[in-house]
C-alpha cells in the first residue's frame, strides 16, 4: 500500500459493494445502454474519462462512464448512496488500486496522459492529484509537520526556509494561517473539526497538485466551518481543478460550475450546474434534486 503522498486511504463503504449490476431499471426510466445526457465533453479538459467500468470482484460499481473535467473548474458529483460517485472519484488518482479485487476498465487521462499506464509513477500521480476526505484525518503530528510532510518526501524544499515558506503559503491558501500561526508546533489533532479539514486541504495543496479530489469534505462539519470550506473551494478553483463528491445538493449548486448526477453506477447527466438545478435534462436528475427519491 502506498500512502506516501495521499495521506490516508479512503475505506470503501458498504454501499460500494452493493450489487448494482443490471437489475430491472425500466421502472425508473433507465435502460442498460444508458447514454449520459448533457455535455460530457468540454473544451480545456484537465481529465478525460472514457468508457470507464469499475468492478469490485464480480460486482460492477461503475458502468461505462464518460466525462471531461475542466481545468480550473469545480465539478460536483451527486447521487444517492451507493451510486458509485465516490468510487469514480477515487479512480481519478488510483485510490482504488489499494482495494483488493477492484478492477478498472476504460481510459482515464490527465492532460492526455494515461492514468493507468504501467509506466506511470503512482506516487507522483497522487502528488498531482491530491485528495481530501470526509473525516478530517490529520497525522498525529504538529500542524507544521502535517503540511511539511508532503513537500519533504517529494523533495520539494531545499532548505528549511523553503519549507517554512511552503507551509505558510499552504496554510494561508487554506485560510488557516491566522488561526494557527502562533501554535504551529502543537498537534494538528487539537484543532476543531473545521480547522482540521482546512489543515488537510493545506496538506493536500502543499505539494502543488493540479487536481484536488474532495470526498464529502464538509459532511462532518458544522454550517460555519462548511461555509469556510466552500469559500475556500471557490478560491482554490482559480488555480486548481476540483472534483467534489457531496450529498449536500445545495453545496453542489453553490460551489460547482458543472454537476454530474450518478445513479446505480451510471452517469445519468452532466451539465452546467445552473441548468442542473433549474432545468435538468433527465427525469432521474430532476427526481433526485427535488427530493423525490434518494
Amino acid at each position, binding site marked *: 500500500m502506498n500512502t506516501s503522498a495521499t495521506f490516508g486511504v479512503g475505506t470503501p463503504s458498504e454501499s460500494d459493494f452493493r450489487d448494482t449490476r443490471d437489475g430491472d431499471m425500466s421502472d425508473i426510466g433507465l435502460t442498460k445502454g444508458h447514454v449520459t445526457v448533457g455535455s460530457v465533453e468540454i473544451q480545456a479538459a484537465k481529465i478525460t474519462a472514457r468508457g470507464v467500468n469499475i468492478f469490485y470482484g464480480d460486482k460492477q460499481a461503475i458502468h461505462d462512464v464518460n466525462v471531461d473535467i475542466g481545468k480550473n473548474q469545480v465539478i460536483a458529483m451527486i447521487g444517492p448512496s451507493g451510486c458509485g460517485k465516490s468510487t469514480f472519484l477515487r479512480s481519478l488518482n488510483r485510490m482504488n488500486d489499494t482495494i483488493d479485487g477492484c478492477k478498472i476498465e476504460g481510459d482515464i487521462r490527465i492532460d492526455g496522459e494515461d492514468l493507468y499506464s504501467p509506466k506511470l509513477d503512482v506516487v507522483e500521480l497522487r502528488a498531482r492529484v491530491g485528495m481530501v476526505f470526509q473525516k478530517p484525518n490529520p497525522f498525529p503530528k504538529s500542524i507544521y509537520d502535517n503540511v511539511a510532510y508532503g513537500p519533504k518526501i517529494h523533495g520539494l524544499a531545499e532548505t528549511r526556509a523553503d519549507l517554512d515558506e511552503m507551509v505558510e503559503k499552504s496554510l494561508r491558501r487554506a485560510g488557516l494561517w491566522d488561526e494557527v500561526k502562533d501554535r504551529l508546533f502543537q498537534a494538528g489533532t487539537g484543532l476543531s473539526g473545521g480547522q482540521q479539514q482546512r489543515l488537510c486541504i493545506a496538506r493536500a495543496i502543499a505539494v502543488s497538485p493540479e487536481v484536488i479530489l474532495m470526498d464529502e469534505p464538509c459532511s462532518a462539519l458544522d454550517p460555519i466551518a462548511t461555509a469556510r470550506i466552500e469559500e475556500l473551494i471557490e478560491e482554490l478553483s482559480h488555480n486548481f481543478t476540483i472534483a467534489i463528491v457531496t450529498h449536500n*445538493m*445545495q453545496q453542489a*449548486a453553490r460551489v460547482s460550475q458543472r454537476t454530474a448526477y450518478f445513479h446505480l453506477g451510471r452517469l445519468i447527466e452532466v451539465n452546467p450546474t445552473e441548468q442542473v*438545478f*433549474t*432545468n*435538468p435534462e433527465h*427525469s432521474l*436528475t*430532476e*427526481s433526485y*434534486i*427535488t*427530493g*423525490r*427519491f*434518494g
Partner: protein
Amino acid sequence: MANMSFENHIVKQFDGELEDIRTMLMEMGGKVEQQLKDAITSVAGVDSALAERVIERESHVDEMELDIDEACMLIIARRQPAATDLRLVMMVSKAVNDLERIGDEAKKIASHAIILAEQDVPSKGYTEVRHLGKGVSNILANALDAFARFDVEAALKTLKDDHQIDLEYKTALRELVTYMMEDPRSISRVINILWVVRSLERIGDHAKNLCEQIVFVVKGQDIRHSELRG
C-alpha cells in the same frame, strides 16, 4: 416535461405546500376574474352599486397576495426547492403580482363606472368597452385555465390572442378620439371610457405575463423579452 407533478416528495409536507400555493393562486385567479367581470358589468350596465362592491372586495385580493407571497417565501426558506419545484415557486410569486395588478385595474374600472353613472348624458364608447371587456375576460380565463392544467399549448395560444387585444385596443382608441372630435362637450365623459379601455388593455398584458410564466414552469424556458436573446 409533459406531465407536471408536484407530488411524490420524500417529505410529504413539501407536496402539500406546493399544492397549497397552486390552489391559493387558482383561488386568487378566480377572485380576480370575478372582479374583472363585475367591473365591466358595472360600466356597461351603469351599476354604481356593483362598482362599489368591486372596490370593496379589492382588499381581499390584496390579502391573498400577501398570504401567497408568504407561503412562497417559507417554501424557499424551508425546502430549498430545485428544478420544476423552484420554477413553480418563482412562477407563483410572480403571477401573484400580475393578479394583484389585474385586481387594481378592475378597481380603477369600477371607479370610472361610478363617475360615468353620475353623469346625466350617457357617454359614447360603451360598445368598445363591452367588446374589449369580453375579449380580455376570455384571455384571463384561458390563462388561468392553462395554469390549472399546465397547458403550454393553451398558454401560447392565449399569448397570440393578447396580440389581437392590443390591435382592438388601438381601434377602440381611434373610435374614442373620433367621438371627442365630433363633440368636444363629450370629452370629459369619453375620457373616462378611455381610461377603462386602457385598464382593460393592461389586464390583457398581465394575463400575457401569466402565460409566459406557465411556459417557464413547464418547459424551463424563459420566453419573456425573447427578442433580447435571439
